[in-house]
């Protein structure tokens, strides 16, 4: 079922091979394998408790896997890899009593930056976010959104090649979310690989190049976003037309729904059997009705996500959903 993306020209930023983690009561990750190509934004999707955070913690070497292997840019995971990884956890926080500048300096030094380099980079980043005068502010005096900016800076200060963002937009207002989005794209332009863990399908839709879906500790889907969408095409079309006084051959088409827009203007969802392409549909329709608009109805990431998660564990239903 899973699509394994293999592009021979790109280097893999991260490869997970059969990673398993078992806690005493439950299996958090069950034989999960992933390939994350370099310089992409990779969406790690899945419902709460699916095992995303466990996987992210294993990559960050906060916990160890029971079995399996992680390769970072072709090297087996080792302690100094933390210096090329930037991690923004979902549960995030800062030292409340520390000043913004000191705090960033401390966190950057923990990531292996020298004090001097850290100073210079902090200044650049504070300017980028137009918060230069925050250096001496204590974190407890910042608003939640302000603190999030500081936290984001702390994640990327050491110019990590691999950036892991767990729900990065939570707590941001739309303006700041836009700002962060721009910075994320900028980081990608500059050659970073970004792993993006989220439930927000609209961000996945707009930002991610690749996705993987984890559910109940198992990976159930992986691949480039376009390819995944392609795979979940259901040969369904949305047509606006005038008049509804026609019938289509039932061996070729199934009408999934029809609504009247106004007067005799109708919108019809039509599913064609395999083998019938869009052009053929148009051809068939032109003879019997006046076509106003025509488009193939592609599944949204949300559709795919919800459909797969609901169906997981129920193969028959899953097959059915894929057919629909």
């Amino acid at each position, binding site marked *: 079922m899973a699509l394994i993306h293999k592009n021979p020209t790109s280097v893999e930023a991260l490869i997970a091979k059969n990673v398993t983690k078992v806690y*005493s009561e439950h299996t958090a990750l069950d034989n999960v394998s992933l390939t994350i190509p370099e310089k992409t934004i990779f969406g790690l999707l899945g419902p709460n408790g699916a095992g995303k955070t466990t996987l992210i*913690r294993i990559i*960050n*070497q*906060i*916990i*160890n896997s*029971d079995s399996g292997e992680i390769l970072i840019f072709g090297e087996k995971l080792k302690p100094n890899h*933390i210096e090329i*990884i930037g*991690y923004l*956890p979902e*549960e*995030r*926080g*800062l*030292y*409340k*009593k*520390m000043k913004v500048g000191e705090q960033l300096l*401390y*966190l950057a*030094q*923990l*990531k292996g930056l020298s004090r001097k380099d850290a100073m210079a980079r902090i200044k650049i980043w504070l300017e980028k976010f137009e918060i230069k005068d925050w250096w001496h502010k204590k974190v407890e005096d910042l608003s939640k959104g302000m603190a999030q900016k500081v*936290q984001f800076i*702390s994640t990327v200060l050491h110019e990590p090649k691999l950036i892991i963002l767990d729900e990065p937009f939570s707590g941001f207002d739309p303006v700041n979310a836009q700002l962060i989005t721009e910075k994320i794209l900028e980081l990608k332009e500059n050659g970073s690989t970004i792993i993006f863990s989220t439930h927000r399908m609209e961000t996945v839709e707009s930002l991610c190049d690749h996705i993987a879906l984890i559910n109940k500790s198992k990976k159930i889907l992986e691949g480039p976003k376009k390819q995944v969408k392609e795979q979940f095409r259901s040969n369904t079309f949305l047509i606006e037309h005038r008049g509804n006084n026609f019938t289509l051959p039932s061996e070729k088409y199934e009408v999934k729904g029809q609504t009247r827009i106004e007067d005799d203007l109708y919108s019809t969802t039509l599913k064609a059997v395999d083998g019938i392409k869009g052009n053929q549909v148009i051809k068939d329709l032109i003879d019997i009705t006046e076509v106003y608009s025509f488009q193939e109805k592609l599944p949204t990431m949300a559709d795919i996500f919800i459909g797969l998660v609901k169906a997981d564990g129920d193969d028959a239903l899953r097959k059915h959903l894929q057919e629909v």
Partner: protein
Amino acid sequence: MNKIWLIIQREFLTRIQKKSFLITTILVPLIFPAIIGVLVYIMKKEAESAKADTVQVVDESGKFVFENTKRYNFVPLPLTIDKAKDAYKQTKDFALLYIPPFDINKPEGMIIYTKENPSIEKVGGLESILQDRIRDLKLEAYKIDKETLKSLKVSVNLKQINISETGEEKSSNSGILYGLGFALGILIYMFVLVYGIQIMQGVIDEKTSKIVEVIVSSVKPFQLMLGKIIGIASVGLVQFTIWIILITVLSSGVLGYFGLKMPQKQAMEEVAKQVGDEEVKQAMDQQDKQINDLLGNLSQIPFGKIAFVFVFYFMGGYLLYGALFAAVGSAVESMQESQQFQFPITLPLLIGYFGLFMFILRDPHGPVSFWLSIIPFTSPVAMVGRIAFDVPTWELILSMVLLIGGFLFTTWIAGRIYRVGILMTGTKVSWKVLAKWFFMKS
């Protein structure tokens, strides 16, 4: 290693930059000299303002010859008591003392008339003057002169000398040793508790502020724990050093200001000047000798060794308990929640503390004292309390080695609980859960 150093630095710097650190570091040493200063000041003021009270006396017995003292001016009145009472009402004098004829074996019927309720001290003062006079009268009656009486008074001080196995003699003073052991033992107990709780608070803060996940993606949890423990220890040592220096400087400063290098001696000199009594001079000479003995004994106490042992057990005890406090902090989410674990882990420390009073200071070389100062959990308080009493070298070395082993052991246990605990939220923590975390493979 470099990262532990960064953590130590942060823990240290953020704490010593706090206002509360500055305030406690400066105020605590001020308390002692302030108390001394205030007391001396009050005493001086009182001495200056003290005026002798006038006491009118009607002595019908004719047995008394009153001499004025610092506190009382006596005015004998050749009147009957009734007339004297009328006259007294017109004056502003403190009291009217009436002494009827009496039997020296049964002195009764003496009355003091006053306008206000006199303080018990003033009445007592008069009573003792009367008692002294009656005693002298009795001595005369028994035909004992004052010289004989003086020679009856003796004062003995046992000079204590320890003979070691090598035959070396050392003079000692159990009073000083007791005080020293008492003070050092309590200091260790307080330090371990106060700074241990600071560690716990620090860990809880990191956990609840959620920064811990960011930190442990940069350093190992064990490094974070160790850095925190060592960082707070250095805060403690710095604070302690400042206290010692400040207390010493301020106390001698205050005493110097009031010109009371040796308050007791000066007071006696003053008394001697006024009274001119041989007895007092003699007592003073004796006291001088005692002070010299005391100084001699003090110089025999190995302060260098005691200081070294104190610092060693301070660090050892602190590290041993600090690790446990860190483990508790990692497991809970608030100070309240930590209560259930706090008591059991500090129980051994408490046993050491009570052991200090019940066994070590009373019988420093008894079996209980021995074991308390050997077992790592109680030894920080017990050994420091005992060290002034001269502990055999082998016992000291054994105790130190065990303490090092002890804190390595607790740090190991704590590290295993800590690494799991700091990332766990929303778990109801019990001893069973802690044990599970401990055995969880990494």
